[in-house]
């Protein structure tokens, strides 16, 4: 029986995970476009404006613009149910973050990442289909770029005709042109989405690796009718329409049923993304309160040895991290967002409170990047301030040019329609960024003992509300048990000692008795 068991235990034959092999086969076949857009006559023209390209698109894809105009990529907000608030529209139009704070009053620049043309400060015609920017997502030539601070219009260098003839399914370049650069630079915001993913190896991301499956973003974030699957909880709040690992891998992807059972409470990402920002650094902290320092009346920047800005006059000071170990939180897919005008009721202020706890059946442990910092707020009204940051000329009230907080605050708040008292300060804020990308090869997955440990640096050392074997134990029981165990060892040792002593004495006595009798007989 033991031989049988030992054979079983010691055998380490590697099985093929057929589920995984099947997925790999499916994704190894890359779709080939059924049409060549360069052959269409309507696209073989010199386009004067990008809107003309959109019109050309719509002339064949007659209803697609309607789908686009229903998407959050277009509207910059979603209607969702937020616990404690009810049904609200939330999104880039009314949330605040602790990076560049918010798009309001800065649209001229921020619209670089809007899928439309002509979004200038507080003006955009959301009903005009001509303003839909098809190319930013569908350009396959990698030649299309939006201009800096051009209200969402393409850069002047772009050859529209060339781009229009080379459209197709979105690639990583298209999605990445915005999603890799959130927060004003590569990998600043997410930490797990960055330019390195355009050409990385499997150690960085098994899905997108050039030497791996080389999957595109849309392989998981499918876009039926232009509604992207998946959402980010800095701008979203409800537990619907999410992109999950399980949608391909099922929730029983492992051979070991015990590991499968973990999925009841532990997200796939928690174990399979041991670290993020694997190639380039990501921002971990941003202190606006230190911004505005000038050298000889001029703004300046300070870089660290890696070339990351650690101080810029326009934005303040930063902290960066590479190969960062995620923090872990309970999350049930719903979040509360700080919306413009909300009262500051906690310190530090959490801008996107992820809901969840162990006892909530929907909650799982997820890895997050925690971004902290401080930012401007109204001391009297006790609300965060949306400052006007971007401007085109001196005297615009834009902080990035004038370095005058009161003016920037006043201009920004005026535009969002909120009061500004004239008294401002800086309040600490926190944001949670769920980490979902940069999935590591399976042999790099987080090991059991990294969580199941009594060490204070265990990955789940900070999570409470549940019993984690290996980390938790009943202290009185352990104390009593260990005491009893050693007491019983002590007890039997004492007992044994007495027995030995007694038997030695007895032997001596018996010998004495015999001697005594012998003496008597003599």
């Amino acid at each position, binding site marked *: 029986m033991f031989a049988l068991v030992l054979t079983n235990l010691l055998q380490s034959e590697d099985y093929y995970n057929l589920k995984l092999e099947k997925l790999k086969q499916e994704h190894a076949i890359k779709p080939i476009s059924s049409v060549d857009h360069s052959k269409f006559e309507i696209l073989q023209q010199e386009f004067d404006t990008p809107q003309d390209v959109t019109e050309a698109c719509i002339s064949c894809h007659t209803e697609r613009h309607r789908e686009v105009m229903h998407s959050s990529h277009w509207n910059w907000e979603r209607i969702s149910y937020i616990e404690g608030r009810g049904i609200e529209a939330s999104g880039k139009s009314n949330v605040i973050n602790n990076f560049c704070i918010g798009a309001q009053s800065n649209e001229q620049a921020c619209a670089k990442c809007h899928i439309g043309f002509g979004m200038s400060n507080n003006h955009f015609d959301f009903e005009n289909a001509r303003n839909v920017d098809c190319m930013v997502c569908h350009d396959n030539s990698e030649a299309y770029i939006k201009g800096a601070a051009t209200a969402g219009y393409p850069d002047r260098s772009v050859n529209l005709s060339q781009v229009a003839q080379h459209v197709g399914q979105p690639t990583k370049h298209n999605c990445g042109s915005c999603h890799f650069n959130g927060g004003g630079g590569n990998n600043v915001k997410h930490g797990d989405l960055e330019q390195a993913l355009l050409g990385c190896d499997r150690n960085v991301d098994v899905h997108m690796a050039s030497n791996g499956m080389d999957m595109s973003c849309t392989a998981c974030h499918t876009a039926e009718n232009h509604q992207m699957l998946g959402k980010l909880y800095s701008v979203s709040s409800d537990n619907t329409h999410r992109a999950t690992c399980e949608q391909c891998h099922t929730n029983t992807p492992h051979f070991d049923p015990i590991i499968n*059972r973990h999925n009841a409470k532990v997200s796939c990402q928690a174990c399979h993304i041991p670290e993020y920002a694997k190639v380039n650094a990501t921002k971990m902290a941003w202190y606006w309160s230190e911004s505005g320092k000038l050298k000889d009346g001029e703004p300046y920047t300070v870089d660290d040895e890696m070339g990351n800005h650690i101080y810029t006059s326009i934005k303040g000071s930063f902290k960066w991290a590479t190969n960062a170990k995620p923090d872990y939180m309970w999350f049930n897919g719903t979040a509360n967002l700080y919306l413009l005008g909300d009262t500051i009721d906690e310190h530090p202020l959490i801008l996107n409170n992820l809901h969840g706890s162990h006892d909530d059946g929907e909650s799982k442990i997820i890895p997050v990047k925690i971004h902290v910092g401080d930012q401007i707020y109204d001391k009297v009204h006790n609300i965060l301030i949306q400052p006007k940051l971007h401007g085109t000329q001196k005297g615009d009230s834009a902080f990035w040019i004038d370095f005058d907080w009161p003016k920037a605050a006043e201009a920004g708040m005026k535009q969002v329609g909120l009061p500004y008292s004239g008294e401002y300060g800086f309040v600490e804020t926190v944001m949670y960024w769920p980490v979902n990308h940069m999935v590591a090869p399976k042999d790099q997955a987080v*090991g059991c003992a990294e969580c199941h440990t009594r060490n204070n640096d265990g990955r789940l050392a900070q999570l409470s509300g549940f019993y984690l074997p290996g980390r938790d134990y*009943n202290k009185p*029981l352990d104390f009593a048990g260990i005491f*009893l165990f050693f007491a019983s060892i002590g007890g039997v040792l004492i007992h044994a000692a007495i027995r030995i002593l007694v038997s030695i004495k007895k032997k001596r006595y018996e010998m004495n008795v015999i001697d005594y009798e012998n003496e008597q007989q003599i």
Partner: protein
Amino acid sequence: MKKVYIYKGFERFWHWTQAALIIFLALTGFEVHGSFSILGFEHAARYHRVASWMLIVLIIFAIFWHFVTGEWKQYIPTTKKLKEQILFYAFGMFKGQKHPTKKSGLTKLNPLQRLVYLGFKLFLVPVTVISGILYMVHKTVDKNDTVVISDIPLEGIAFWHTLGAFLLMVFLVVHVYMTTTGHTPTSNIQAMITGYEELEDDDEDTTSVTKTNKIDNNEKKG
């Protein structure tokens, strides 16, 4: 002295396999518990699970064996001579007194052993095994691939399992030590290995003539 066949083949197999499994489960279990690190959590947890299934199968066979052979009657508790037995271990054996009860194939267990082993079988093992099974299936995946989570908090399950484990360790220490209190320090262990034990052949010992002694005597005479 005479050699008596006390422990049957299955009984010895059961005893030693159970002993090995319990020691192995203790090592791996306390590693999972976080008390020390030998194999690494992952291996400890996996081997603990494998060994626990083996123990469960063994226990099922043992229960079957006890009922089929009628050996379960050995564990019927009695207070008769219980006090004497305790006094013997506490004082008597130091004074060179004889065991107050006689061992034979039909009464292998003295009154104290009966009580302790019955507690072992009816309390200690069930508490540990049942809490262990609950521990193991605490989160299960059902046939429809949905996860069913037990409503019983793991904390409580872990408490009982750990309690059982500590008590089993105390049992192990005392039990191993008590094997040395036979005719010679190793005679009990030898008996559990070979099945045969040299038992004292004392017809003249009138203080401890029990029913079994009579049977022994009869057998001898026969």
